[in-house]
């Protein structure tokens, strides 16, 4: 589990040595987390670089709830120190890699939560987590009919009759 400490608004992590970050969620929860844990996030890394340039530390405001943020931190903590190919900007784009076993359990959440996590991961630029969520969502709709997919994803058929029968719709097979 990550080293997460809930602190008062007034508590700001110390500079330098402790290497702690203060993350503030959209529901105004303050979460202190070790910088090292969040280094997987390119967004956070860029922010931290900015702090170093100004030799000041600030809270990082994030546009998602503490519930989602804690999930992301849990993910980052689990893979702390691991090399994940997908997070390597120099690596080739990921192929058909399966969802890792741990990720599978980690992402065993309801659809809306899964969508919130992928959105947060995208915002934080954690490619490996985006990838795992994307695979999990793809798995949800794999082997389903169009109608079943709509039901799972909560959308309706909004094609015009012409669109439904347009050449591009011969994809229906």
């Amino acid at each position, binding site marked *: 589990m990550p080293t997460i400490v809930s602190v008062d608004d007034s508590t700001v992590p110390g500079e330098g040595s402790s290497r702690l970050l203060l993350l503030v969620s959209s529901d105004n929860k303050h979460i202190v987390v070790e910088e090292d844990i969040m280094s997987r996030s390119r967004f956070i890394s860029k922010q931290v670089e900015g702090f170093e340039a100004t030799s000041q530390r600030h809270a990082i405001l994030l546009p998602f709830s503490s519930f989602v943020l804690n999930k992301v931190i849990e993910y980052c903590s689990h893979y702390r120190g691991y*090399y*994940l*190919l*997908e997070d390597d900007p120099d*690596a*080739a784009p*990921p*192929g*058909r*890699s*399966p969802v*890792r*076993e*741990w990720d599978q359990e980690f992402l065993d959440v309801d*659809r*809306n939560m899964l*969508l*919130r996590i*992928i*959105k947060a991961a*995208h915002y934080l630029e954690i490619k490996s987590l*985006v*990838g795992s969520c*994307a*695979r999990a*969502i*793809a798995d949800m*709709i*794999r*082997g389903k*009919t*169009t109608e079943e*997919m*709509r039901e799972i*994803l*909560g*959308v*309706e*058929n*909004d*094609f*015009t009759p012409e*669109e439904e029968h347009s050449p*591009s*719709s*011969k*994809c*229906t*097979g």
Partner: protein
Amino acid sequence: MTCTKLTSMPDLSALEKKIAEAEGKLLALRRLKNSQAPISRLPVEVLTRIFSCFQASRHNMHTSPSCPPAWVAVTHVCHHWRNVALSCPSLWTNVVLLSPSWASEMLNRSLNTPISIILDYDPEEEEIYADDHVVKSALARARRAKEIVLRGDYLQDNIRPLFRRTAPLLEKLELWDHNRPLSLRKGDLFLGQTPKLRSLKLRSCLIDWKASMLFSPTITRLRLEDVPEQDRATHMELRDILAALPNLQNLTLLNALQTSSKTRSNGALSDAQHRLPFPHLKSVNISAVTAQDVSAVVSCISAPMDAGLRIECEKFTAGRKPSSSAGCLASCLASFFSIDLPPDRQRALTSNYDAIGFAHSQRGHSFIAGNCFPRLEEPYDMDSNDPLTFANTQWTPKVYLQINRHPSQDCERDIYSLFKVACAILPLSDVNTAFVDNLEFYTPETWWQMFGKMDNIEEVVVATGEVYDGFLAAMAGKGRPSAPFPPDDLFDDIIARHESQSRKDAPLLPHLFPKLMELALEGIDLGWETTFEDLFGVLSFRCFKRNGMNRLETLRLHRCDVHAEHLIRLAGVVAQHGVDWDRVRDGAGLYESITNTFELADEDSSDEEG
């Protein structure tokens, strides 16, 4: 009768107009509603990523001539999804040639994005006739191809465009005609222009060994398989090719080498002074007819210490003296792994083995030596490992030491050499699993010498033997040598090489296999009263955690010969240590899985009386 004047009725066209308006409004509302759905609020690039994952599934890629790829169904979910999918050319880059209409559609929708051209079927399993026109038309776009995979039959005519186009983006090429050898000698493939080629797999192809493509320095993976015998490269030709591939990571040569007796050129492939350096090499997998053929290639390779090697020889002796083959193999292995074995030991090393091999993997290491590679799951498939999948897989580290010995020959002396090679390759302290075969003739001292300082072994499999008193005696603490230990220089070189893993100064363990938690006995004759008593004594002793020893948690008997009476006694030991009796229904139950303490596996194992 009075007639009531009817209010003016709208005409039909007006009604249709109103319906259209209403439908338009309804549609707009549906789209608005969809736009508010959580899935629709994902950024386009995330949605595209989901589609890519959906598309990447092999299940969804497979198409039959009449059906589109299954993943295309995402374009029918809603308007937004279709727009996103159609506006993302990278989703349409897998041009699967089995479906002619879809292949053309993909080629168009992918715009100018690099494409993968895939024709992959097994004519023995599927009756498929690829449309020649479509195949040729796709291959005519070789300039755009980053991947070309053609595995099918009757491909010879279809691959003609490949001799007329350059392939500046091509990274992967795979060719295999099931029907007959594919001739690549009709000219220079891709006009010799494949500056990005990384992976080249040619199976059953007649290869022009001077073709520029083979000399692309960008190649990291080379696999040549089932090369027609009369057209295999000479050793010198092969050496020239390898010399041009300094970035090689995976080399696989299966039935691709000339046999020594048929070598066209006498040029020596291996030259200790001029070994070819491959600093990035991860695995080498070679199968050939004779040990000499394998050795010829392996000996010319200078690989990093952690590179893996798997070799197989069809005929170990191939008309030569076994010792000559063995010596040849041992010396090439020693050179590959940079092991400094004295020549006499090298000769001894494999004189009793039909094959000897090593495999390393990210998942762990294994050392296998024996008549063949008989029972182990490969650490990983070196041929098909996808580095991407590989990097994303979490392996359980398992370091496996397996020593098989020819049952009919006394090669106790050799075991030290063999073991020395293993020790030089495996990090000793990491070894956690040992499989020992046909070592029943070894004395307790032998066991101590081999394993007396390997303190992390948790699982031991002892297989095939009539008696194994030496093992049980060693387990019971007998034969533990007094200092100095080891009596010979067994570990000296290893210590010099792996100082950090020095075992010389490590104290001899108080018990053999102190961390043993799982013991498997396979094909062992436990019918002898004394043998059983020894086993029983060892088990009883190992049922407790003491003196830094782990408690034995699992005992597996597989195809063992044991009296029913003895089984009952074993059950008694089991019972004392918390067996779940519900799982022991009757005598037969003993052979089933008994959790908690011992697991006596395999119903058809051991004694029928049971």
